[in-house]
């Protein structure tokens, strides 16, 4: 992992470790808060299949397995086989001090990619993977705490549709990636 990318982000959420663990463990819900994830499906015991929006709207896929699981506390996973983007991750839900909710601590490590995989990483996470992952985690927090993601997409203004500001455009309009219909609409929905 010497030349890879490591990202660590944490948020404190107003929920119990068990509630967060249960929400996170339903991998199929990841597209609700992970902007680039199209789908995560069960692919056998402790295995899942991921489809992610890559550069130029190309789908990137991989299989992952859970390598460590402590109920209500820790999930650790890694990709299996030889995917374009070889990586592993760990999420830990720790009680915060004094009953102040739970710290969700996410650690991701991507192996140094070469060739097209390097381009994939940039496409997946932009120039700043830590920012992308932080915003994914923030969306997780907001779904858990507020039950929805705040938005101004589609609100009224004195601007024509062509003059809308960046925050009034949907994610797909803003970054030019093609987000499948299901993922785009479910993103705004209460889980």
């Amino acid at each position, binding site marked *: 992992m010497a030349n890879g990318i490591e990202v660590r982000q944490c948020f404190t959420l107003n929920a119990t470790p068990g509630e967060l663990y249960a929400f996170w463990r339903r991998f199929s819900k990841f597209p609700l808060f992970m902007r680039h994830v199209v789908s995560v499906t069960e692919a056998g015991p402790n295995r899942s299949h991921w489809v992610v929006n890559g550069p130029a709207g190309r789908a990137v896929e991989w299989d992952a397995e859970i390598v460590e699981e402590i109920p209500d506390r820790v999930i650790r996973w890694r990709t299996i086989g030889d995917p374009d983007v070889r990586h592993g991750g760990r999420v830990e839900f720790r009680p915060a001090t004094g009953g102040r909710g739970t710290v969700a601590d996410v650690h991701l490590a991507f192996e140094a990619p070469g060739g097209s995989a390097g381009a994939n990483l940039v496409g997946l996470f932009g120039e700043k993977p830590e920012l992308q992952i932080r915003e994914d985690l923030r969306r997780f927090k907001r779904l858990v*705490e507020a039950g*929805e993601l705040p938005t101004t997409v589609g609100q009224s*203004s*004195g601007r024509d549709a062509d003059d809308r500001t960046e925050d009034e455009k949907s994610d797909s309009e803003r970054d030019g990636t093609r987000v499948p219909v299901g993922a785009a609409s479910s993103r705004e929905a209460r889980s």
Partner: protein
Amino acid sequence: MRAVCWDGKEKVSVENVPDPAILNPRDAIVRVTSTAICGSDLHLYGGFVPTMEKGDILGHEFMGEVVAVGSAVTNLREGDRIVVPFAIACGNCYFCNRQLWSLCDNSIPDPTKAETLNGYATAGLFGYSHIYGGYAGGQAEYVRVPFADVGHLKIPSELPDEKVLFLTDIFPTGWMAADNCDIQRGDTVAVFGAGPVGQFAIRSAFLLGAERVIAIESVPERLAMASLGGAETLDESEGDVIERLKLMTGGIGPDACIDAVGLEAHGHGMVDWYDKVKQAVKLETDRPIVLRTAIEVCRPGGVVSIPGVYAGFLDKIPFGAAFGKGLTMRMGQTHVHRYLQPLLERIEADDIDPSFVITHRVAFEQVPDAYAMFQEKRDGCIKVVIDPSARASQETVS
């Protein structure tokens, strides 16, 4: 619908724009029955707030009737009459749970802008620039209210709009300013600035037990209104405020000082903006002097309470005096949700009728002129209320 849109520095216009729609399950749509221009809207009008965009709908003091609710809103229904706090808060984050509603973590759609510029993000606000979420505001016929299930207070039908409209902002803001002073029996509170927030701070200080309130201001009609509220007045234009305040307080200084002026210039943490603004508002460079004066004149061990908005970096604040005198300083955007019910009860009990502050009532068509009038403090203007149902052809300016 008609809405007041920001078109650039000192330019607002009334436009026909699309009606708002429910965008999230916790939204409601409100048909606005009364809305107002806030002193802080003048910061936007003056072009001091970055991240405004042409076409933004202004306004964060509004009330009205619910006409639609999202699928997750179970405590409101069509026809309910509500006031809406100016800050948008989720009701279930660390901050909301501690009654720190204006610091809500979950209401700005893209907080990365604010975090990049300021190092932090707080709650989204209606009609108050894109760094505060870019939400369309309430100087309009209809407005979308996010997190409407926690962001409202239902109003009994017998209370007229004008008595409760200011629960949205300036009454709680003046109240929190006084509440932050920890007023004890016999206390004297100095209120700097007798604009709308200062006026409510004066009356709130008395309701919270102050024995004396001294209003420091230079605009005659504001001094007169302060005086009607029971305050002793000190015309700031007549010379040394510190010396005169000391003489009025037995040489010791006020027990608490409220800075209800703030920094006209919203710098939003950006040094370049701060510099530009400093140049642009040469006329207003005395504004930070209010905070300096408050610190210098406050009695040792007293409280400096700051409802006036500050945003950037301040020059030459006598922090040594603040430390040396062991002052307590409290500040921040108002946690309006916290005060809605208790202040409604104050209104119902006739402890206060907030409509005292209104000097002008206008129709939409008159709003651009009203902004200019308010900015220039012309025609005795202290507070402007907009009636969306009125037409300019009717004589509505009072």
